[in-house]
């Protein structure tokens, strides 16, 4: 995932983050470098732009507030992903506690997507994202990181702390669920 030049830049960035004089400038570089990548990761989990925007900003606020606890034993991207994932899963759990999402009729999420001003897909695309959205939270997370972000199982394992074997199994099952859902709709 990283090249030698990126590793050197990252080491320098981490050193500058630890220095209070250069911390803000270094953090600014991190925001520029990772904000869009994190945006799309969050967006595919929560689907709406407004929720994504809030979660993305909360992610960086939390990262800024916890810079001192970043020991540098993982990559910056891994650290940021973990924060984004925690924020996203917390948000999803909270949202599910306040809605009747478990009883949401099939096709409802796709309908909401198609009426969303910031979604320009066709009905099949909306159904696909509904199928992904119906996966259990952590399985959805693994699927999104593998399928959309094209991460390796090792990278995913470093972020979520699950074994590679379990991740492979989870992803395989997620694919089957999505395929079955789409086949039923067809």
């Amino acid at each position, binding site marked *: 995932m990283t090249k030698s030049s990126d590793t050197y830049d990252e080491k320098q960035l981490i050193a500058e983050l630890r220095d209070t004089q250069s911390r803000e400038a270094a953090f600014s570089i991190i925001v520029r470098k990772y904000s869009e990548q994190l945006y799309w990761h969050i967006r595919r989990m929560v689907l709406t732009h407004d929720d994504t925007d809030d979660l993305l*900003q909360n992610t960086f606020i939390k990262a800024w507030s916890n810079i001192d606890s970043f020991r540098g034993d993982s990559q910056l991207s891994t650290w940021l992903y973990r924060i984004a994932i925690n924020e996203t899963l917390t948000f999803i759990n909270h949202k599910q506690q306040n809605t009747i999402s478990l009883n949401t009729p099939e096709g409802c999420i796709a309908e909401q997507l198609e009426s969303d001003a910031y979604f*320009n*897909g066709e009905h099949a695309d909306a159904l696909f994202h509904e199928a992904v959205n119906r996966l259990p939270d952590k399985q959805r997370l693994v699927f999104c990181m593998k399928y*959309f972000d094209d991460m390796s199982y090792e990278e995913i394992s470093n972020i979520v702390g699950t074994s590679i074997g379990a991740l492979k199994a989870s992803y395989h099952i997620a694919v089957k669920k999505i395929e079955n859902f789409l086949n039923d709709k067809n």
Partner: protein
Amino acid sequence: MNIEEYKNKNRFTVPQGYFDNLHERIMTTIPRDKKQPSKRKKSVMLGRISGWSYAAAITLIFFIGGAIFQANNNTQQATANNEYDNELIEEVLTNYPIDDYTFYCYLTNNDTEY
């Protein structure tokens, strides 16, 4: 059914120019005082009142309480003081950043003849 066809099709869009100023917006929201990280909230929750609102409420209470005390102790000037009190309340409400709920709490907790 092969789901690979959806892989490279990003059907989600963003408001125009969103990513152009995203960096600046994020940098303006990070708390410079790291002791008090501020989390963006989508809506104001009634009952969660910040420290500044409490300070504003206490200041408001002192002003209004003092004005009421002065009015109650001088019956001959009751009419003039009522007008003064209204002006004072209006000035305080205009110049102090106190939300309506805090003011409502004050009023309902101080339900007097006045």
